[in-house]
C-alpha cells in the first residue's frame, strides 16, 4: 500500500432531487485495497458512487482521483482514466449480445488489438459467460447479468472499480462466487475496489476497511475485522 | 471569467463558420452554372452582426458591466408590477372590458379587422388550453375542430338557411363529437405519440374536407354563407321587427367580443371547478389520479370535447364573418400558431394566452414590410422561447409539471 490515496472525498455533499442525500462525507481509498461502505437502504450509498462519477451533481466538497480533482468533470471522462463503476441493478444492455456488452466496456480504449485477449481473460474468470457469449444480455439470469456487468467493467482495465450492491437479489451461492471473483481481481490484477453493500456480512468479510453510512453521514470508519466484531454494528447490520 | 469566455468565443466562431458552410450552397450555387458569394455573404454578415451584438450584451450582463443600465430598468419594472398589483383585480378587468368595448368607436376598419382576428384566436387559444394546459394532453391538430365548426355552420346556412345563433350550438355539438372521435383512440398514448397522432388527425380532417366534393365542394370551398342576423325592433306604426344581417365590421366585432367573453368566463369557471381540478390531477400524475378515483377515460374525453366546443364556436363565427370557407384555412400551420399562442403566452394562464394571441397577430401586422420573413421569425421564436423562457410570457401560477416530463 502506497501513501497517496487513489480516491479521496473531502466533505462531499450532494442532493438527489430535493433530498439532501450526502451531508459532507469524507473517505479515502488506498491503491490495492478493498474498501466497503455499508449502510441501510436509503443511507446514500448509491448516491455516493453516482456523485463520484459525476452523474449526481456535487453540491459542495471535493473529489480527488490519484490526486487529480474530478469533481465537475463529465462522467464519460472517468473510465479512460481507470475509474469504472458497476452500478446498482446490473444495467447490462439487454438487446446486445453478451460479447457486445463486453465490447462496450472496452469501447473507449485506444489499444483495440488487445481487446480480444482481454475478453478471453474475462471469459476465464466467468466461464458461464463464455457459454452464453452470443446470447442477448436480457436473456441471462440475475446472477449471470451481474457477472456480465462486472466483466464488462473489467474490459475497461480499471484501476479503481466501484461496485454498487453486487449481491442484490442474488442467491447466496452466486453471491459467494461473485465475491470470490472480486477478491481474485483485486489480488491478481491489483484493481482497487470500493464496494457499496447492503449485505454487510459478506462485504466486511471481503474488505480490508469499511465505512458505515447512515442517512448521508459517515458514522464509523474502521478495519473490516473490527467492524465485524463491533456489537453496535452486529446489532444494526449483521442481524443479531 | 476570462478562460471561460475564450471558450465561448471559440465556439461562437466555429458556429459562424458552420453556418456559412450550410448557408452558402443554398444561395451561392446557381442554376446557370455560376458561383456567387455575394448573396450568402450579405445574409451571413447580418446574422454575424446581430449575434455578435447579442453575445456582447450577454457578456455585459454576466460580468455585471451593464449593471448601471439594467438596474434602473429592473427597478422600473418592479415599480410597475407593484403598482399593477395594487389595483384590485376586478377594477383592472373592468378597465380592460371598457377599453375593449369602446375600441371600435375610435378605430378604423384595419384596426378592427386585426382586433377581430385577435379575439377569434383568443377563443381558439383558450379552447386549446383546456386540452393542453388543464388536462396536459398535447394536441397538434386542434384546428380540425375550428374547421368542423366552420363547415357545420356553412352547410347549415347554405342548405337549411339556419340562422347563425341557432347554428352555434349545433356547430358546437358537431365539434364536440369530433373531439370525442379524435380523443377516443388517443386516450392511452404517451405524450409524444399523442402529438403526432393528433397532427395526423388534423391532416385527415383537412384531406377529407378537400376531397369530399359532394359535401364540402372540395378545394373550391363554400360560398354565400349568411352573416349573423338580428331582429331590430321598429317602432314606426306598431311594433314590428326588421331582420338585418350584421355584415358591418364593427357589428361583427361585438359578436366576436361577446363570444370571446363567454369563452373566457366559461374557461375560468372550468379552471376552478371540480372538473378542472380533476383535469389538473390527470395532468400532474395520471396513475395517482386514477387511484384516487378520477375516471381518466371520461375526463380526458371531456377535455377534448370541451376544447373542441370552443374551437367550433370560433369556427362558426369565422364562417359567418368571411361568408366563405375552404380547406386552405385549416392547415397544420394554423394549429401550430394556436399552440404557440398557448405555450408562448403561458400555458394555463388566461392573461398569458390573451397576450400570446395579441403578440402573434399584432406583431406580424406591425412588421408588414418584412412579411416574407414572418414564418421564419415565427419558427425561430418558438425555438428561442423554449431555450430561454419555456414557461411562457405570463406563466400560470398553478402550473406544475407532468410526472412523465420530469427527468430523473
Amino acid at each position, binding site marked *: 500500500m502506497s501513501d497517496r490515496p487513489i480516491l479521496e472525498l473531502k466533505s462531499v455533499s450532494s442532493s438527489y432531487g430535493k433530498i439532501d442525500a450526502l451531508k459532507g462525507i469524507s473517505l479515502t481509498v488506498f491503491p490495492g485495497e478493498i474498501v466497503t461502505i455499508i449502510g441501510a437502504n436509503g443511507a446514500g450509498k448509491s448516491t455516493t458512487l453516482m456523485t463520484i462519477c459525476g*452523474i449526481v451533481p456535487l453540491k459542495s466538497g471535493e473529489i480527488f482521483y490519484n490526486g487529480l480533482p474530478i469533481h465537475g468533470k463529465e*462522467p*464519460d471522462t*472517468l*473510465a479512460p482514466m481507470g475509474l*469504472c*463503476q458497476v*452500478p446498482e441493478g446490473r*444495467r447490462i*444492455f439487454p438487446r*446486445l449480445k453478451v460479447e*457486445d*456488452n463486453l465490447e*462496450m*466496456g472496452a*469501447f*473507449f480504449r485506444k489499444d483495440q488489438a488487445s481487446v480480444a485477449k482481454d475478453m478471453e481473460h474475462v471469459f476465464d474468470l466467468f466461464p458461464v459467460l463464455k457459454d452464453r457469449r452470443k446470447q442477448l444480455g436480457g436473456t441471462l439470469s440475475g446472477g449471470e447479468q451481474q457477472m456480465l456487468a462486472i466483466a*464488462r467493467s473489467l474490459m475497461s482495465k480499471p484501476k479503481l472499480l466501484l461496485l454498487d450492491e453486487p449481491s442484490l437479489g442474488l442467491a447466496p451461492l452466486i453471491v459467494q462466487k461473485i465475491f470470490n471473483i472480486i477478491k481474485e481481481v483485486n489480488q491478481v490484477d491489483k484493481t482497487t475496489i470500493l464496494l457499496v453493500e447492503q449485505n454487510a456480512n459478506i462485504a466486511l468479510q471481503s474488505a480490508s476497511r469499511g465505512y458505515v453510512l447512515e442517512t448521508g453521514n459517515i458514522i464509523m470508519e474502521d478495519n473490516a475485522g473490527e467492524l465485524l466484531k463491533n456489537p453496535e454494528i452486529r446489532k444494526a447490520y449483521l442481524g443479531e | 471569467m476570462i478562460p471561460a469566455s475564450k471558450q465561448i468565443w471559440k465556439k461562437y466562431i466555429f*458556429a459562424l463558420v*458552420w453556418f456559412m458552410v*450550410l448557408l452558402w*450552397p*443554398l444561395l451561392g*450555387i446557381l*442554376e*446557370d*452554372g455560376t458561383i456567387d458569394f455575394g448573396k450568402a455573404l450579405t445574409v451571413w454578415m447580418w446574422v454575424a452582426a446581430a449575434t455578435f451584438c447579442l453575445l456582447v450584451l450577454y457578456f455585459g450582463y454576466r460580468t455585471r458591466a451593464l449593471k448601471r443600465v439594467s438596474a434602473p430598468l429592473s427597478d422600473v419594472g418592479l415599480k410597475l408590477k407593484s403598482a399593477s398589483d395594487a389595483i384590485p383585480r376586478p377594477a383592472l378587468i373592468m378597465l380592460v372590458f371598457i377599453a375593449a368595448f369602446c375600441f371600435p368607436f375610435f378605430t378604423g376598419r384595419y384596426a378592427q379587422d386585426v382586433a377581430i382576428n385577435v379575439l377569434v384566436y383568443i377563443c381558439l387559444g383558450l379552447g386549446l388550453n383546456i386540452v393542453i394546459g388543464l388536462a396536459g394532453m*398535447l394536441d397538434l391538430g386542434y384546428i380540425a375542430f375550428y374547421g368542423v365548426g366552420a363547415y357545420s355552420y356553412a352547410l347549415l346556412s347554405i342548405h337549411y338557411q339556419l340562422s347563425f345563433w341557432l347554428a352555434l350550438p349545433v356547430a358546437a355539438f358537431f365539434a364536440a363529437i369530433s373531439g370525442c372521435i379524435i380523443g377516443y383512440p388517443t386516450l392511452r*398514448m*404517451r*405524450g*409524444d*405519440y399523442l*402529438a*403526432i*397522432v393528433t*397532427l*395526423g388527425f388534423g*391532416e*385527415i380532417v383537412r384531406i377529407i374536407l378537400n*376531397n369530399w366534393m359532394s359535401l364540402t365542394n372540395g378545394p373550391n370551398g363554400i360560398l354565400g354563407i349568411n352573416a349573423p342576423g338580428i331582429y331590430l325592433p321598429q317602432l314606426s306604426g306598431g311594433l314590428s321587427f326588421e331582420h338585418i344581417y350584421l355584415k358591418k365590421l364593427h357589428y361583427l366585432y361585438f359578436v366576436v367580443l361577446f363570444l370571446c367573453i363567454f369563452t373566457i368566463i366559461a374557461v375560468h369557471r372550468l379552471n376552478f371547478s371540480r372538473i378542472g381540478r380533476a383535469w389538473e390531477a390527470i395532468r400532474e400524475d395520471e396513475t395517482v389520479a386514477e387511484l384516487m378515483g378520477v375516471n381518466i377515460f371520461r375526463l380526458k374525453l371531456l377535455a377534448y370535447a370541451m376544447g373542441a366546443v370552443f374551437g367550433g364556436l370560433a369556427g362558426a363565427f369565422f364562417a359567418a364573418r368571411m361568408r366563405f370557407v375552404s380547406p386552405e384555412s385549416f392547415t*397544420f400551420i394554423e394549429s401550430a400558431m394556436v399552440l*404557440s399562442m398557448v405555450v408562448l403566452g403561458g400555458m394555463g394562464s388566461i392573461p398569458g394566452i390573451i397576450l400570446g394571441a395579441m403578440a402573434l397577430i399584432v406583431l406580424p401586422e406591425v412588421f408588414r414590410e418584412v412579411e416574407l*420573413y414572418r*414564418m*421564419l421569425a*415565427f*419558427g425561430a*421564436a*418558438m*425555438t428561442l*422561447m*423554449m*431555450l430561454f423562457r*419555456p414557461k411562457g410570457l405570463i406563466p400560470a401560477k398553478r402550473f406544475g*409539471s407532468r410526472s*412523465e*416530463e*420530469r427527468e*430523473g
Partner: protein
Amino acid sequence: MEFFIQQFINGITLGGIYALIALGYTMVYGIIQLINFAHGEFFAAGGYMGVILLSFLASRGFITTHPWLCLGGSLLLAMLYCAMLAMAVEKVAYKPLRHASRLAVLLSALGMSIFLQNGLMLTQGVFDKPYPSIYSQGGFEFGNIVVSYLQIIILGVTIVLLILLNILVYKTRIGKAMRATAQDKIMTSLLGISSNRIISITFALGAGMAAAAGIMVGLYYGSVRYDMGFVPGIKAFAAAVLGGIGNVTGAMIGGLIIGMVEIFGAGYISGQYKDVFAFIILIGVLYFMPTGIMGENVDDTRV
C-alpha cells in the same frame, strides 16, 4: 395481374424511400426520446441539395458526359450537407433542452421545422424546382408493366444504403455503441462512451439517409418543393412506430409496409385519400400494438 405487379414495383420503390426517412426518426427517438419534427426538412434539404448540384453540373455540361458519376457525387455531397445540418440543429435546438420537459423540446423541434422549411423557401423560392430530365428517360417494358432505369437505380441505391446502415448499426463497434446508448445512456457514459458524440453521429446518419431519400424522390417525381417534407415525414414516422421505435430493422420493414399499403390503397381503394392510409396504420399500431412489429429499442431504465 399486370396492374398488380406494376403496383408492387411502385410500392417497393416508395417503401424504400419511406424506409430511408424512417431511419432518422427511429434512431433519434431511440436515443433521446424526441420526435424530431425537423427531420422532414432534412429530407427536403437533401432533395434541394441534389437539384442545386445537378443543375449546376448540367449547366456546365458534365451531366451529358458523365450522368451517373454526377449523380453519385451529388448524392454523397447532399448526404454530407444534411448530416452537417442535422448536427447543427441538434447542437442548437435540442442539446440545451436535454433535461427540459418533453413539451419544450417538442416545441423547439417544431420551431426548427418551420424555420428550416421557410429558410428553404426564402433561399430557393416557392415554386417547384425541377430535376434534370435526363435521368428519368428510358426503361424496360414487359407488356403493360413499365420499369424505368430510374426506378432500378433508386431501388438499387436504397437497398445498398439500407444494407450498409444495417451492417453499421448491428456489426460495427460504433453501431453497437449507438444501440447501447439508446438502451441506457447513463451506463454508456459510465463506460467512457461520450453520449454527446454518439447522439451527433446518430443525427448525422439519420439525416444522411433522409437526404438520399430526398434526392431520389426529386428524381422520381421530377421536382422538389420547400414543403415536401411535411407529409412524408409523418408517414415515415408512422413507419418507424410500426416497426418498433428505436429499432433500425423495424424502421426498414415499416417503411416498406407503409409504402406498399399506400400504393395498393391508392390503386385499389382510393387515390384521393392515399395519404390517409399511413395515418390509419399509425393510429392502429399505437392503439393495438404500441411496441411495434419488431419491438422497441429505447431506454428501459427510465419510467
